């Protein structure tokens, strides 16, 4: 079987990460994934890794003294393992920051081992998804609900 290449390999290479990215602990997913978006849900900016989305919006990356783990995470798409986790996480952020982040809705998609690699979800149900080159993220995600 041919090894699939990641959609943002070039971006990962440009970040000068010393370790493995994605991490070797990433696994092939099979789950319903949830992601914060803005409307319209099929806006392509919704599905860019955060470092590219920030660049597209003319904003610097938000970090202080970033390490390799952070740099690698910037090259993935933030997702949640459940709608509840996605909504709870959003509500845990102060309102002024929620406004600045700009997200308004939750979109959902089924992601499988054919679509990419997923990091181990953290205690908040958040994980990074590193999509394969041939995965059409925009077409796969459908609007679920408002945040």
């Amino acid at each position: 079987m041919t090894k699939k290449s990641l959609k943002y390999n070039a971006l990962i290479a440009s970040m000068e990460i010393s370790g493995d990215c994605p991490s070797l602990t990433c696994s092939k997913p099979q789950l319903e994934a949830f992601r914060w978006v803005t409307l319209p849900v099929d806006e392509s900016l919704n599905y860019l890794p955060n470092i590219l989305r920030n660049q597209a919006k003319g904003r610097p990356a938000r970090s202080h003294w970033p390490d390799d783990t952070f740099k690698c995470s910037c090259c993935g798409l933030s997702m949640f393992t459940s709608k509840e986790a996605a909504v709870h996480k959003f509500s845990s952020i102060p309102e002024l920051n929620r406004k600045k982040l700009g997200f308004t809705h939750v979109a959902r998609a089924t992601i499988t081992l054919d679509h990419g690699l997923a990091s181990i979800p953290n205690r908040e149900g958040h994980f990074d998804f590193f999509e394969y080159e041939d995965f059409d993220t925009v077409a796969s995600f459908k609007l679920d609900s408002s945040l």
Partner: protein
Amino acid sequence: MIHWEAKYLLNRLPVEGLRKFADLIEYEGPILSHFKDVAGRDYLFYWVDDDAQVVRWIVWSVEMQTLVAYLNKEIGLYDMMRLAQAGRLFVVDMEHMEALRTVGYANLEDLPEAYLPLDNLIYAYEMPEAYNALIAEEPSMYLTRLRERALVFEMKPKDSKFSTTVEMGDAGMFLRRLDRSFQNFAKDDFFERFKNTFGDFNRLKRTLSELMQIVSPRIVTLEYRSFVVGISSDNVHRPEDTNFTDWQENILVNYQREVVDRNYNDPATVEAIVTKYGEEARAGIFGPFMDILNDSNYRISAYNRVGTFKRELRPVDESKELQIVSRAKRVVDPESKVLVNLILELPSNQDLGHLSRKALSQGLLFSQVVSEAHMSLTVIETDDYRVTLTKPLDYVLRLEGDRYRIELSDLEISVIGTSREDVQRKLVTTFVNKYLDSRITGHPAQRLASLFQGLGITLVKSG
């Protein structure tokens, strides 16, 4: 980005050797982060704004105690900002991830309102694991952490004679019973959960013994207006084997759910307990707890500090109690006593006040544990009076669990004590007071006067 000019500009953040300790709120980058400087002082970085060139942070020095209160959900983010040390905050514009562009110095009231987290959001998650080691090193924080999850019990005397105060012996008994019940629950719960993961029973016992040293209940709050005690179990010192972390984290909540937050008079509850727990476990866990509930001298209530549980704890009907713990399976308190009826064969001139062990063992014909003994006395002494009776005063001494009760039903006297001496002292005081009251015209006790007269009482004031 909001145009904001600091009254005072600095050329750098006046802090040496900052290193990040944890991101407390983050999404695709930090939103609120905790840093430490070389001297171990604590700082918070809070993201408030950005533009094409810079990300703006409010930075302030925070007391660790304040930060722990935030992580314990006791105060909100805005509270933390208001508690900035000396009220000083820095506004830091940071460029390209690393370089500081400008640093302004401000008081809270100088900041744009848009930079204030006025929703004062409470921290939404469990305290990050990284803080356990910090807290373990700081006694006051260790206590704060344990208090956060405390299960609180309140004992209120039913009799208001001594206001809401509780006898020390009763408080001690209460704590002993609670401790026994909790420890037995923890052991049983651990055994049931992990019995199949240990091939070696001795290793299971060793592990359990080590864990019990950590999780044994500790007193974390105490009030004496009425007796209020908060107990908690340690979730700061972690076991070496991380497989037991969840068990440790949840053991107190599980005890609350399985033992404290129960209606023992509900048949379905009793059935669920009998189905789930074996006889030995029921005796060890529920026996001492029901003893607490059935203490007729006190009203007991319980609640947790996080505010999700509050309950008045009711006495358990005898039939339900016996379904859960049969008398035969009652775990014997090492300090408990029984009344025994003995029939001895002794020389007719034997002084019963000085029976030797040999006389006892050789002369014993019959013994039987009894729940009550019929006794009598002819002389009663208090600090103030000596009372002599021409007719013996008969009374019944009962041992109810670990309490002694003396009843003289004719004279409407019923007293309870924690020891034989205690209950006899109370009997004497109550008897004398009632006798004196019976001699007062119009006093309710006057109706008992003829009964007292029948005893042929001679009362002499001492001293």
